[in-house]
């Protein structure tokens, strides 16, 4: 019983992770990297600097993506 429950739980975790990856990948396709990864990076390496809010982060990435000199693929 417990093993079955554990299996279901693990399956749920796997599906949850797959879903998170899919969402991350879709966001990255339009040039938006993972905000949580950015936050943890800032916390780990620049605790002295304020991190951007999600809205600022979103705007910053938007300008970076479309300000680049590489065109879109054919």
């Amino acid at each position: 019983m417990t093993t079955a429950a554990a299996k279901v739980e693990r399956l749920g975790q796997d599906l949850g992770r797959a879903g998170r990856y899919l969402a991350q990948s879709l966001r990255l396709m339009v040039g938006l990297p993972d905000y949580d990864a950015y936050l943890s990076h800032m916390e780990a390496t620049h605790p002295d600097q304020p991190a951007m809010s999600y809205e600022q982060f979103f705007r910053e990435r938007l300008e970076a993506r479309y300000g680049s000199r590489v065109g879109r693929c054919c």
Partner: protein
Amino acid sequence: MLNIRRHLPWLAVAVLGAFALATVALGRGEAVSALWIVVAGVSVYLIAYRYYSLFLAYRVLGLDEKRQTPAWRHNDGLDYVPTNRYVLYGHHFAAIAGAGPLVGPVLAAQMGYLPGLLWILAGVVFAGAVQDFVVLFISTRRDGRSLGDLIKQEMGPVPGVIALFGAFMIMIIILAVLALIVVKALANSPWGTFTVAATIPVALFMGVYLRWIRPGRIGEVSLIGFVLLMLAIFGGQWVHESPALAPLFTFDGKALTWMLIGYGFVASVLPVWLLLAPRDYLSTFLKIGTIVALAIGILIVAPDLQMPRFTQFAQGNGPVWAGSLFPFLFITIACGAVSGFHALIASGTTPKMLENETHARFIGYGGMLAESFVAVMALVAASVIQPGVYFAMNSPAALVGSTPEAVAATLSTWGFVITPDVLIQTAKDVGENTILARAGGAPTLAVGMAHILHQVIGGKAMMAFWYHFAILFEALFILTAVDAGTRAGRFMLQDLLGTFVPALKRTESLPANLIATGLCVAAWGYFLYQGVVDPLGGINTLWPLFGISNQMLAAVALLLGTVVLFKMKKDRYAWTTIVPAAWLLACTLTAGWLKIFSADAKVGFLAHAAKFSDALAQGQLLAPAKTPEAMARIIFNDRLDAVLCGLFMFVVLSVLVYSVKASLAARAAGRPTTSEVPFQPLPLGAKA
């Protein structure tokens, strides 16, 4: 024993693939299911990935799982982020897959489905995927530098500048040919024109929503946008059927051209959040969704192939594009087999996010395999419709006539028996006034997709919906590419002109912006207009120029790979890039030479110019020119195209010379002479 057992499943895949290929290539007379093409393709991809990319990864390039990648070294949570490989694969695929793999195979189907299929498969395994993988590797080992910088670094500043200039010219041609595809699809199509026009207010609304109402909620706004787009398709049907509204959205090619030029100018000076970004979201998600839907559709419907394996046009003289199988097939299908533009992506954002160097194999090589699969699906879509319909859609009116009766009569003499009723009925089925002379790939692909998808969802009544869905999906990401490409071209141009007039370099100055944007739009607009008024359909002129330039960029990237392999002292494996580079050089230089000098006026620019100037000298007018001025313009355009073609050949030949010099120098050196960032180990806790 254990060793052999490990390979047994792969042997099974290889046998299955060989059987599928044999069925596709050798069957006698009976109908072949498109599933065999899919099985053959997927088997080839699996074997190539399992064996050849493994060989490239560890024997040739020597990927090192312990080596630090730029994502770790420069981690800033923004550009440089160690990213899960599956997440990054999606990003990379979305960045490389565009209209190219959808259009080239459709155009190549005029020779039958087999030549195109074989080139797509062989090309991707030995050239396209190798190029993407090698460039991704090279850039990753050099802090994610761009292709231009890499060439500068490894071969010297002169070839670097030459390659950058080549990239700019390619961009102009790509924009012109992409815009031409949209014009061809929307000409005299009120439904399509309304739907595509409606994407502009939809995108503006999304932009405002994302900026002011719910900042940064991409998923939510994309869902709303998607619903609005579907409504726009139904709205298009309403417009198409309304006698009052239909004329308001019915335009000929010339009018659409001017609108696109104006649109390109305005769109690329607007702030990005207002129009470009939201439409980019829509087009990206729609692209991925449609590709998946098409794959599922082909699997469920398993349509039979109607196109013969070979048509008589495999000998040359085809109505869609002129020229013989070698070299022109190999430049007609660029993306999907090998695409030089990918070298810019593989040295762009992707190398800055690789979590581990070993992932370059999955993302570089594997990503290109996925794009190749898209090309195979496009080929399937073009081959499951009746050949008569295919040729009616893709042959210029100057060759086959402009009424259904005339077209049907001409095609029947070619052996593609079709009645005028079928042509009229097909147009009616997809909600169009006519399907004749719609070269450019998008409409044919849309008919093929509608043919497949209406059998999954909706039945016959939904066929017109699916057709316009497919048109919308292509037009949407082509318009995004036009917008983004004009912007990128403007920056390149400002850099270029800035060396002479420093004031033009300031990207924040409005006059400088407007001047550079105007020049950029004028450049691609010129070629677009020339293509639209071309009696042979424009595709016949512009697509080979695009193919030649794109394949030449691929050759340049593979030459860079060769130089780096020699510098790494991997001389014995340098054939992995030399062979595809040599093949591409042979194809593109032959094609370039023929496009300039062929005596056949359908192929050679100069022969065509001579034909018109001879006629002009004798006071005659040749169609479509109605005045001597129009004749003179055609002659000028032919010569311009010839010069452009020569320019591309000059670019690739000079890079060849520099790469041979660099390779010889590297061979003469007694030790590796690469300019990689020195080895640093991955930080503790970083996964392999």
